[in-house]
């Protein structure tokens, strides 16, 4: 499933909404999550999962082609952990 299919499906279920509004709704949801993480916040969606930011320490990396050492700066990366309900559903335990 891709973004446009999600929008189409939600649009079909909500004939009273303009498709362009459904598009804005879906975009607003994902945008809000990225915004939250960019500000160092977490987003916890019970049953689905939680998005958080993890810190990666600075390290000395290596250019795999030349073997040369390069310093890699500390950085923050997005992380997602699936929620219990979804994990259970993936393994056939509908509750």
């Amino acid at each position, binding site marked *: 499933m891709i973004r446009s299919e999600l929008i189409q499906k939600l649009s079909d279920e909500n004939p009273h909404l303009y498709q362009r509004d459904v598009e804005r709704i879906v975009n607003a949801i994902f945008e809000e999550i*990225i915004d939250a993480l*960019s500000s160092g916040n977490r987003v916890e969606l019970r049953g689905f999962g939680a998005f958080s930011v993890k810190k990666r320490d600075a390290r000395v990396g290596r250019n795999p082609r030349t073997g040369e050492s390069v310093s890699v700066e500390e950085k*923050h*990366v997005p992380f997602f952990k699936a929620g219990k309900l979804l994990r259970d559903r993936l393994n056939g335990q509908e509750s």
Partner: protein
Amino acid sequence: MAAKTLTRMDLSEAVFREVGLSRNESSQLVERVLEMMSDALVDGEQVKISSFGTFSVRSKTARVGRNPKTGEEVPISPRRVMTFRPSHLMKDRVAAGNRGQ
């Protein structure tokens, strides 16, 4: 870091601000989006949201695990796990926003 935790309520609020729907309808739409994504994943489908990221399901084979406390061997049955790969855009924005934090 201002470790605030956002929930469904904040997402509904964002939808509410974006389009002039009621708060109630906004939260129902957020719920539906999460349900649709979950259902697709449970069906084994990949969920690819451009400029956000890709959720996919991987199957893991059975293996023998060990209870770290007792050292006892326990069988781990085959299972499906979900992974999320953030898009470049998301990685860049998260890295930029948290720089020096």
